[in-house]
Each structure stands twice: as C-alpha cells, then as structure tokens.
C-alpha cells in the first residue's frame, strides 16, 4: 500500500514537474526574457564541478607552503587553512573559520583560540612598520565572527565577537577589545586597556583581577577543545563510504 502511494506520488510529482517546466519555458518565450544587466558574455564551463564528493579540503597547500597544525591543536573539520598557516600547540580553531595565508604568514599561538566563522587573512604589506603577517600570540581569545587582517595580537588578550582588526593594527598584552569594535588601520591598543566602539575608543584601564582572568578564559576554551579533539578519530572512515559509492556506480577502485 505504502509503495503504491509512493509510486502515485512520484508519478504525480514528475508530471507536475514536467508540466510546470513546459509552462515556465513558454512563459519565458512569451516574456522575451530581458538581457542580463551585465554586458559581458558568460561562457560556461560544462565540466565545472557542482558537487565535490570530497567537500572542501581542510588543508590547502599553495606551492611549497603547507599549513602546519600541531598535534594537539584542534581544528574543526570545516575550517579552511590555506597557504602559510601555523596553528601551534594547544590552540583551537572552531567551525567555519577561514585562515588564508596566501600572501603572508598567519600564526595562531600557544593555547589561543580562533572561534567560529572568523576570517584571518594577511595583506601584502602593512601601512605601519610592523611585518604584514598576522600574529596571534599565546593565550589569546578571538571571539566569533571576527575579521583579522595583518594584525598583531600580543599575548593574553581578548578580542570580542564581531570585531574587525584592519591592516597593521596592534593589540598589546593584557588588553580587551569589546564586542563589535573596529580597529582602523595602524591603530595600537596599549597594554592593559579596554577599548570598544566603531572606530575603537579607550574605555578604561583593566584591573589586576581582570588581567588575571584573561589567560584563564583561554585555558578554559582549550579544555573544551580537548573534548572536541577526542571526538574525532585520526583517520575518518569516509573512504569506506566512497568505496561503496564507487562500487554502486560501477567504478573500479
């Protein structure tokens, strides 16, 4: 009975599909579809892959540059590391982050973390005298949705969520950036201060207790990342699925 109903549904849907498809083409023919606003002619590549069974590779080497991940660093499976990226030990990079070191080096230091959906990129050159590489030093917490570009973050800082650090900005030790702040190019945040706003402005000095809390937060996130790290086996078992898939399509392995 169930199979029968499924069959009828199937035939109905395919028919509707065909019918609407025909109607759609007719409508288009009637409408004399307006030309696209762009004057350039788009030539499609028929071989363009619409679905890559491998998904997005996590580690993308460029030329001789191979992203390096320390053995006990946790990098989530859908992170993209491209080019000269160094994820040092104890650090964690969370889901959906993109670290693209194709123009310059990116370093995520000891016990630091780059949280969800961050983009870390490096520009060719920085407007200040600093090297144009992105340095995230030890015990730094970079909140979710941050955008970092060729900036240097010295040890033990907290960068709030959705902050934007532009070229050549420097966050010195024991500083905190509030959520949603924007650091314009070449801006420096001195030691032990709290900054906030767009563009970032000085709010107050941090107390000694607060500066002590900063590495504790980083360590707490490191502990959490350990749990995640233990969830993943060193080698995934997807190759079995792929072999099954190839078998079912009759491709020799």
């Amino acid at each position, binding site marked *: 009975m169930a199979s029968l109903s499924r069959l009828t549904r199937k035939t109905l849907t395919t028919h509707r599909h065909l019918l609407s498809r025909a109607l759609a083409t007719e409508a288009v023919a009637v409408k004399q579809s307006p030309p696209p606003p*762009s004057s350039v002619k788009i030539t499609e*590549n028929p071989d363009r892959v*619409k679905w890559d069974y491998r998904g997005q590779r996590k580690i993308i*080497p460029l030329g001789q*540059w191979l992203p390096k991940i320390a053995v006990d660093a946790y990098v989530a499976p859908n992170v993209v590391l491209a080019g000269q990226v160094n994820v040092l030990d104890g650090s964690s990079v969370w889901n959906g982050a*993109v670290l693209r070191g194709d123009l310059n080096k990116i370093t995520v230091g000891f016990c630091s973390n780059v949280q969800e959906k961050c*983009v870390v990129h490096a520009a060719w050159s920085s407007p200040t005298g600093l090297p144009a590489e992105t340095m995230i030093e030890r015990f730094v917490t970079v909140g979710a949705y941050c955008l970092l570009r060729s900036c240097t973050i010295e040890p033990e800082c907290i960068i709030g969520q959705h902050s*934007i650090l532009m070229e050549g900005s420097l966050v010195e030790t024991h500083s905190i950036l509030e959520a949603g702040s924007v650091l314009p190019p070449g801006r420096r945040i001195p030691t032990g201060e709290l900054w906030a706003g767009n563009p970032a402005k000085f709010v107050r000095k941090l107390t000694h207790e607060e500066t002590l809390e900063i590495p504790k937060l980083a360590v707490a996130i490191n502990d959490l990342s350990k749990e995640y790290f233990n969830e993943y086996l060193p080698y995934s078992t997807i190759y079995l699925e792929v072999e099954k898939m190839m078998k079912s399509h009759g491709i020799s392995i």
Partner: protein
Amino acid sequence: MGTLGRAIYLVGSWIRVAGQTVDRVGCTLQGSHLFQEQVSRHRTLMNLFDKDPVIDKDAFVAPGASVIGDVQVGCGSSIWYGCVLRGDVNSISVGSGTNIQDNALVHVAKSNISGNVMPTTIGNNVTVGHGAVLHGCTVEDEAFVGMGATLLDGAHVEKNAMVAAGALVRQNTRIPFGEVWGGNPAKFMRKLTEEEIAFISQSATNYTNLAMVHAAENAKGFEEIELEKALRKKFARKDEEYDSMIGVVRETPVELTLPDNILPDKAQKTAA
C-alpha cells in the same frame, strides 16, 4: 600479478574485513552517541527548480562556498571560501573581475513586494571584503565594500565609492561617486584620493590572479595531491647554503612553484 601477489592481496582483504568488523564492534560499543560519517553532501552550485547558477569558466568558486539559485558570475571573478550567494527569490549578478571574499553573504530581497524588484547586482572589478553582508543592493563597477560591512535593501554604492570596514549602510542609501562611508549607520567620512581609487582596481586584479592559484589548487585530484605531498616531503629539507657547500643545484619542482603574478614586487619566497 603473480600467485604470491594474489595470495598477499587476498590476505590483505581478509585483514581489512577483520578491521571493519573491529570498527563495527567499536561502533556498537559506542552505541547511540556514535556519529557515522558521510560523504560530503555540500553542493557548491545548486539549482532551485529551474533557476540554475551560471558561472563563467574562468571564475573561481571555492568548493566550500554555496551558490544557489539565479546567480550569474562573470569571467575572472572569485567566490572565496565559505561564501553564500543565495539567489533564491530574485537574481544575483556578479560582474567580471569581482572578488567576493571569505564568509561573505549575498542575498536578495523578496521580489515584487510593493512593486519594487530588488535583485542584487555587483559590477565589474568590485572588491567585497571578508564577512560582508549584501542584501538586495546594487554595487557599481570598481567599488569597494570593506570587511564586515552590511548593505541593506536598496543600498546603492556608486562607482569608485567605498564602504569602510564594519559599516552598516541603511535601506535605500546612495553612496555617491568616490566617497568613503563608514560607521553604524553609515555616514560620509571623506573623499577617496586618486591613489586609493587606483588601489581598488589594483586589488581586484591581484585577487583575480590569486584566485587562479586557488582554483588550480582546489581542482586537483587525489593522485596529484599525493604526488605533491611526496614532493614537498622530499624538498622540505632543502637548505640552499648546504647545497652550495657540497655543490649541488636543486631545482624546486614545477608543481611546487607558485605563479609569480600573485605577489607583485615581491620575490618568490621559499617555504619557511
């Protein structure tokens, strides 16, 4: 393949079966907490019914991006990692030489509500920075949308205008030619200098070149990747001083050299 080889192959397959059995035993012990991994089901290009994305053959679309529905991407453009271009209720057209950088989102407003249709059009040689959100707006040629900027419905960025990083451009705002707007809500900040205007078009060209490298890297098959791994391992311990001391000249293999057009006025660096 000799008889010995066949025997070894057979033994290997037995051991593999044993391994899979052990794996299954482990899975049953883990019980309901287990997550069985699947082949990636992420669709880079996805049609919605009859709306197909139209991508030029010279455009780079990262495998981790998703381009859905009625999207047109011109030649030399690049859609970077983690981008989402969702042309489901209306059309998105991206010109040629444009780059939409990582984790950006381009979406469209509902069509035909109160009569105004709002497709998203992005012109040629536009740079859209990381994490920008473009929603039903128009960006003309050679404009620059900075990192983390948000453009709401009906925003119109004219030619050579620039939206600074982290700006939020409210509905129906028009950003005139050659001005910089920033803040939340976006306000006029200053005029662009000639150098900056030149820099915008330069950055678009740089990105086109960079995208080619990434496209080549992402399109590689399994064998190629493995080959390069081996080559990299082989040449990792290359030290030029040592080589010159013992008088050998080692060439970096062709596969491991990047085209030098991505780094203007910068010599090709060797791996650190």
